[in-house]
């Protein structure tokens, strides 16, 4: 696990540093006289350049809220975030700053059906990202688009397609190419392979591993699937109810889980000879949502 530095600012060698991140969603619950909901509670991590951190947990564990805070879609209630040594805990001042943040950190979502513009051809989608995030002239952009498509295993024919003419796996490749366009420091992948068929999932996981090795981009890989995290991450955080219950190198955590919750997650994965009754410490068999 990459150690968390004392002073994340100016640590350009680290792709992401998050310190004591907190997010409470309180307005409605306060009105009803309930305590605020702490979606993310004191979460800290650091990712080296070219590193890959998995964040795992079940629904409601806060993993997507962390992704949204990293991208700036949700403002943290407390704590700091730095990307490539530059603080981004506060809203961007001015469009140049906003663009730079977008350029440094990109996102790939679960469902490429909804994250791509249905009326925009693949080539237009990539060109837009390049115009936004690079200074390239039109000739260079054409060259770069060809390179990006080749990177993700698509060809000229796909470039002229609309999203609806592509399969789910091809669409996710387009989303990855778009994220790579501006050569970001880090890509946040939120359940990016969860909606794909098994045979396609393996292709995209191999692609992600190859791209990280080739480009040195770092990943924040958010997933509920520990087997997938094992394949693409160096380190992992296990979240439960917004708190980190266990963290460390992926092999360490998955081979020698220390926390009971991690063990339960691992025991829940169907394998040869799996018995679902073995999953101990049943979650909440009450009829109320906590």
């Amino acid at each position: 696990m990459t150690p968390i530095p004392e002073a994340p600012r100016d640590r350009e060698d680290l792709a992401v540093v998050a310190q004591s991140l907190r997010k409470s969603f309180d307005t409605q619950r306060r009105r009803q006289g309930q305590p605020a909901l702490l979606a993310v509670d004191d979460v800290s991590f650091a990712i080296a350049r070219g590193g890959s951190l998995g964040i795992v947990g079940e629904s409601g564990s806060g993993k997507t809220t962390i992704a949204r805070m990293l991208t700036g879609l949700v403002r943290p209630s407390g704590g700091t975030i730095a990307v490539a040594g530059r603080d981004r805990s506060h809203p961007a001042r001015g469009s140049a700053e906003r663009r730079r943040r977008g350029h440094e950190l990109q996102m790939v979502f679960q469902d490429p059906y909804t994250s791509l513009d249905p009326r925009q051809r693949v080539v237009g989608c990539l060109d837009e990202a390049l115009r936004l995030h690079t200074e390239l002239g039109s000739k260079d952009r054409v060259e770069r688009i060809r390179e990006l498509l080749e990177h993700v295993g698509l060809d000229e024919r796909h470039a002229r397609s609309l999203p609806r003419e592509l399969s789910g796996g091809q669409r996710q490749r387009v989303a990855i190419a778009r994220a790579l366009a501006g050569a970001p420091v880090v890509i946040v992948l939120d359940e990016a392979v969860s909606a794909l068929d098994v045979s396609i999932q393996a292709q995209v996981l191999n692609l992600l591993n190859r791209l990280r090795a080739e480009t040195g981009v770092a990943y924040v890989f958010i997933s509920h699937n520990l087997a997938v995290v094992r394949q693409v991450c160096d380190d992992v955080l296990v979240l439960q109810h917004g708190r980190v219950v266990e963290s460390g190198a992926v092999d360490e955590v998955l081979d020698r889980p220390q926390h009971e919750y991690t063990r339960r997650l691992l025991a829940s994965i169907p394998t040869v000879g799996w018995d679902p009754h073995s999953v101990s410490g049943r979650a909440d068999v009450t009829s109320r949502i906590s």
Partner: protein
Amino acid sequence: MSPLLEVEHLRVQLPVGGELRSVIRDVDLTLEPGEVLAMVGESGSGKSMTARAIMGLLPPGAEVGGRIAFDGADLSAASSRQLRELRLRRIGMIFQDPRAAINPVHRIGDFLTEVLVRELGVPRSDAMKRAEGVLQEVRIRDPEHCLHQYPHELSGGMLQRVMIAAVLLSEPDLILADEPTTALDVTTQAEVIALLSDLRRARELAMVFITHDLELAAAISDRIAVMYAGSVVETVAAAEALTRPLHPYTEALLESRPDIAVRLDVIPQISGRPIAAYEVDAGCPFHPRCRYAEEQCSLTPPKTALVGTGLVMCHRAQERLGGLHISGEQNSLADGLGAQAG
């Protein structure tokens, strides 16, 4: 004992933009009373459509061929009223998203008792008692409280239990469960699977369990039918499917699943993408992606035959049983890596 469910040469075509497109090409299935059959496949393989054909719930304009018999009665000859009666009393269905299947403005108690009271003429207070009983059976801790709750007050896992309870109320012989745990968290999935396997034993239920997860299928079922492009390519005892897959597609599916135990530099992947039933041309539907494909595989469609203990639709199944899959041919998979787009 005669089979509870028999599906023979099922073919289904759906109208798409003025033409009929094949979604199920030729499906044969049998299910004994009390047996659990898992249907495994990727999206578009036809597993859900098979379930809908059994229920008589195909979209309008669907062309159906072949024969479906339930408890000896031919369903293709049944009137819509008879089918309705069947769905009411003998075949229950559980879907992936309980939130889409349960009316959000009714309390759980009203949802559970609706069919009993309105269709079967059970007095309301008796119906409520029975509803409380089945909620207990699906291990909801405070069933009386649950009856008065609205669907939005329950988590996805709890709501899926309510859905199972609703199905149990009609005391069916057969449950069709279409990806019932796909939308749930893994720990919740384990609980629901444990519940379903306890229930099937206690109530001697037959079940068709549809999933894309081979290992989950093996945990819940007695037999597994693997579907690809609208055909069943392999039917085999659950334990065999994981340890000795005979169809190359089953084998490749198992290998390409991310391994929880080890990190691989390159995960074995199936090149290309799964095709739809209407895209199948001459030969075996899987041959363009198959590492064992020979000339005949692209020319003639393979017939389903008994190989070892399973039914397999593959020209080379007999050779593969002889140990072909441990020969040097595995290398061809690694060679093809990375070159293909999904």
